[in-house]
C-alpha cells in the first residue's frame, strides 16, 4: 500500500509542479490544486497507514490506544484543506481580475514579445 500511495502522491505532485511552471494562469491554478491534493495525501500518510482503524473510540467500548488511527493528521488535513481551498479560490479571483484588466491570461499580465 505504501508504494502505491507514494507513487500516486509523487505523480500528482510532479504533474502539479509542471503545470505551475506553465505560462497561462489557468494551468498554474490547476497545478496548485494538484499540488495541494498531493500534500494533503502526504500529511495523511505521515500518520502511518492502516486499514479499518477508527480515529476515535467507538461509543460503549473501552479505549484501546493501539487500535486507534492517529487523529492528529486528520485534523491537520482538515485545516489544510480549508485553508488551501480558500487561498486557491482567492487566486482564482485575482486571475479573473487580471484577465479582465490586463486582457490576457499570461502569468506576467502581458503577452511575451515574439
Amino acid at each position: 500500500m505504501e508504494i502505491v500511495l507514494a507513487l500516486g502522491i509523487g505523480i500528482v505532485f510532479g504533474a502539479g509542479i509542471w503545470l505551475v511552471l506553465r505560462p497561462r494562469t489557468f494551468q498554474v491554478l490547476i497545478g496548485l490544486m494538484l499540488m495541494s491534493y498531493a500534500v494533503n495525501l502526504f500529511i495523511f500518510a505521515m500518520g502511518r497507514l492502516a486499514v479499518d482503524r477508527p480515529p476515535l473510540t467507538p461509543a460503549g467500548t473501552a479505549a484501546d490506544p493501539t487500535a486507534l488511527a492517529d487523529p492528529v493528521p486528520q485534523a491537520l488535513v482538515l485545516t489544510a484543506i480549508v485553508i488551501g481551498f480558500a487561498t486557491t479560490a482567492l487566486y482564482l479571483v485575482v486571475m479573473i481580475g487580471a484577465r479582465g484588466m490586463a486582457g490576457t491570461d499570461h502569468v506576467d499580465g502581458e503577452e511575451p514579445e515574439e
Partner: protein
Amino acid sequence: MTWTEHLVIVPVLLPLLCGAALAPLTQGWHRLKFAVAYASALGLLANAVALAWLADIGWPHGMGVYLAANWAAPFGIALVADRLAAGMLVLTALLALAALHYAQPRWGRIGVHFHPLFQFLLMGINGAFLTHDLFNLFVFFEVMLAASYGLLLHGYNVERLRASLHYIAVNLVASLFFLIGVALIYATTGTLNMADMAGRVGTLSGDDIALLKAGVAILSLAFLVKAAMWPLGFWLPTTYAAACPPVAAMLVLMTKVGAYAILRVWLLAFADGAGPLAHYGYDALLWGGMATIVFGAAGMLATDTAGRLAGYAAIVSSGTLLAVIGYGEPAVVAAGLYYFVASTVAIAAFMLLIELVDRIRTPGAAMLALTAEVYAVEDTPAEPKGRGVPAAMAILALAFAACALTIAGLPPLSGFVAKFGLFHALVNPGPHAAPIGPAGWTLIALVIVSGLAAIVSLMRFGVRTFWTAGIVAPPSLHGAEVLPVGALLLVSVLLTVGAQPVSDYLARASADIHRPGLYVDRVLRTPAVPNPAPAAEAP
C-alpha cells in the same frame, strides 16, 4: 495561571474581533472604521508594552505561557510571550499605528475592506510571533498571507495585479512546502509543539534523523521564501514596489516574520544539546544570508526607482539577519536583533516617504495610479487636502536623509549603532565563544560593502530628486501623512539615544532563546487550570 497571562492572547483576539466588526461596514463609514482600527492598534501597542514589561520583570523565567482552551502543553496549543516575542509585538504595533495614520487621509478611503484586512494582517503577524506550535504557526502564516494578498491588491491597478499574480502563486507553493515539512516533522518526532519537539530531536536515531533533516529543510524553504533569502526572494522588489505605501510598510515587517520563525525553530530545535542534529543547517543560513546581502546590494545599485530600492534594502536587512542567525553566537544574535529593529523601522519609514517624494516629480501622478472607479467609490478621495506646505521640500529632504543614513548605517542614527554593535559582537564574541574566523570577516566585509552600495544608490536617488529635479511647485503634503514618517524617524532617534537599554533588553531576549531547556521546562510543565470544584449549586 495569573490573570496577567491572559494578556498573551489579546494580540490575537483584539484585531480578530475588530476586523470582524469592521468587515460588514460598507463604504462611507470611513471615520468610524479608522477610529476602530486605530483604537485597536493603540490597544495592541499598550498591550505589547505591558507584555514586554511583564516578560522582562514581572513573570518568572521571563515568559508567559497561555494554554489555549486549557489543554496542557504537548496536546493543546501553547502561546508563549517571552522577551523577544513581546519586543516584536511592540515593533508590529508601532508600525501598524504609523501605517494606519498614513492611510487615514487617502488610502484607507479607497475600496471597502482596507481596515478589516489590515486588522487580520495584524492578527496573523502577532499570532506568528506568539505561537509555539508548528501547525498553528502555519495557520497564522496563512491568515497573514491571505490578508496581505488582499492588501497588496488594495487600490487595484494593472501593476498591482501583475505583482500579485506572482506573489500569490509563490506564497501558495511555499505554504505547500510548509505543510510537507510539518508533516515530516510530525512523522519523525510525533509532536507539533515546538518545546516538545526540541526535547525529542536529540533522541532520534537512524532513518528518522535523515527524514527530520529533510522535513526541516523543506519547512525552512517556506520561511526563507518569506524572509527573501537568495534565490528565493526574486519576487520581493516587484511586489513591494507595487503595493500602496502603508501596505508596503507592513510588508517590510512580514519579511522579518520569516526570519523570526527561522530564529525560533532553529535555536530551539538545533541548539548544542540536540545530539547528532546540533547546529544543523547553520552553515546554509550563514552563507545563504551572505549571498542574500550580495543580491540585495547589487539590486540596490542596479535599480533607479525608489520602491524597488526600498525592496532591495529590505532584502539586505533580511540577509544580514539570516547570516547572523547562522553565525550561531548569542552575543552576535543580540546585536543582530538590534539591527533587525533599527532597519525595519527605517525601511518602513522610507516606504511611507516614497510616495510623498514622488509627488515632487510629477504632481498628481499618485492620483492617476489609482483606479478608484473600479470600486465605484462614491466619495472619490480628493487631492490631498491642505495647502502646499512651504517647508515641504525641507521636511521631505530631511526625512529622506534620515532614512538614508539609517539604512546605509552611517552615524549618527540607529543604523550606525546597529552595525557597530554587530561588528563588535563579531570581533569579541565573548569569553567562551570561538574567535572570529573567515566567515565572520566575510560577513563584516559584506555588511560594509552593502552599506556602501546603499549610500551610492540612495545618494544618487536623493540628488536626482531633490537637487536636480527642476521642481515646479512644492508638493502638497497632508499633515497626517508627514506625521507617521516623522514618528518612525523619531523612533529611530530614540533607538539611538536609548541604545543601551534597548540592546540590554535584546541581549536578555537573545540569552533566553539560546537556552531551549528553559522553554521546554516552562511550556511543558505549565499545568492546565483545574476544573473548578463542584461548587454548591445556586439554590
